[in-house]
């Protein structure tokens, strides 16, 4: 559904990424690792169209990214659930409204999804905080909320940047289970993470490919993962 074809990217200085090819097919599960500053977040942004590649071609759902206008781009975004590394929210709306925001902006009736929403909040352990404002949340609570917001629309692709950086081991297992379940429903999942233990745990439950950015190229990680 998302295709990167010999993509290169540079923020202006030297090249950060070169000759990257990646295919996120329905039902695929990818992990992305690499040292800090190697370009993981950058690669994810290329995948969901927040950055334009300086070389190569990116296609979202068989449409060339370059040919999409802003409105089409917005519609594409609704089919991709994204968890940002620095989770951002609308600070004036309570948590439940924030998690339901993708429904709101796409004009869906929230009442119809109410059950879905409360079930999801239960799963990520935020039911008790539904009325809290985002600035009142702890770091881990924010990450869980960001993940919940990313999956509420049941998007075709889920892209998550360090979704477990601030949560404890037990909670990271719960979040992983959520992602695996969605993956089994046929969604494509791409997760950037430093947490090798989490990746190992995932590999025991699902057929996941682990990619590694090294020296500006994308490689399959070694057998130790």
């Amino acid at each position, binding site marked *: 559904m998302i295709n990167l074809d010999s993509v290169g990217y540079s923020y202006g200085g030297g090249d950060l990424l070169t000759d990257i090819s990646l295919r996120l097919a329905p039902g695929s599960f990818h992990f992305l690792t690499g040292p800090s500053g190697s370009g993981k977040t950058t690669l994810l942004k290329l995948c969901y169209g*927040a*950055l334009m590649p300086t070389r190569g071609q990116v296609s979202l759902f068989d449409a060339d990214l370059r040919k999409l206008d*802003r*409105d089409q781009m*917005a*519609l*594409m*975004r*609704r089919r991709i659930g*994204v968890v*940002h590394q620095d989770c*951002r*929210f*609308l*600070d*004036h*709306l309570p948590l439940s*409204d924030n998690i339901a*925001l*993708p429904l*709101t*902006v*796409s004009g869906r009736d929230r009442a119809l999804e109410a059950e879905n929403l409360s079930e999801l909040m239960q799963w990520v352990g935020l039911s008790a905080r539904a009325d809290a404002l985002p600035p009142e949340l702890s770091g881990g609570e924010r990450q869980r909320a960001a993940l919940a*917001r990313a999956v509420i629309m049941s998007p075709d692709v889920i892209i998550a940047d360090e979704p477990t950086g601030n949560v404890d081991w037990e909670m990271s297992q719960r979040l992983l289970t959520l992602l695996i379940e969605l993956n089994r429903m046929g969604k494509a999942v791409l997760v950037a993470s430093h947490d090798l233990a989490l990746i190992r745990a995932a590999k025991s439950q699902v057929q996941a490919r682990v990619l590694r950015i090294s020296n500006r190229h994308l490689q399959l990680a070694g057998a130790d993962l």
Partner: protein
Amino acid sequence: MSAGTIRGFLLGDAQAARVVPPSGFTANLTLFASGAMAFLAVFALALSLASGRLADRWASELARSATLRINAPLDQRTAQTNAALTILRQTPGIASARALSAEEQAALLAPWFGADLPVDTLPVPQLIEVVEDEIGYDPAGLRLRLSAEVPGAILDDHSRWRKPLVDAATSLRRLALVSVLLIAGAMAAMITLAANAALAANRQVIEVLRLVGARDRYIAQAFVRRFTLRALIGAGVGMVAGVLGVALLPAASDEGGFLTGLGFQGTTWLLPLVIPPLGALVAFLATWYAARRRLGELS
């Protein structure tokens, strides 16, 4: 903007409005700026109308300003008067000329000699009232011609001293109109800047909305509506305050008839009603422009 956009804007979308933080200082700023500007605009408008009336009145008094005086022995007076009238009627720039009757002359002299003055027995000159048209005549040329043909005629255009008054009133009106334009411009600029400040302050809101797939139009609309409503409310309050302020000004009494009051008169009281919708329109365009530009900037 399509008709659909406008309809959507007017009908509104409660959900869309909520995604933008409700308050903040830029909100108060917008309210206040449009209020203050509307208030000042009402005053400038009042000043402009008053000076316009003033200029009109002075101009119309100026229109019947010149007098021709025929100083001649009684036996030649009628002949010279007729000759002068003929010349005046031929002179370009003069709308009409009319010899005053004995009664009119007596009335004019009454302040000096009392009402019972025997005009006929005195060597009182015959007066001719000269009414200029819009273009006006050339006094030097007229004097030259009169001195040749009507030796006893003396042209007295002393009332021309009112001309600078009319000029002054006209320039006062121009000043007031310039002020109205300046105020409207200042309001537009301030609302644009306030909208931009709000958009800059809500950068995170815009990013989040983008991330979850909101269209540009959806985001822009939420801001535009809020600013338009604020400008409308602010300008409405400012306008009402301004009108009250003008109404409370001490009205110049009419007895002089020379300078009219500074307030509104008759239907011109309705004129300030135009200000709030105009302010809202300015805010609408300013915010729409600012939002579209800013949304274009943020990738």
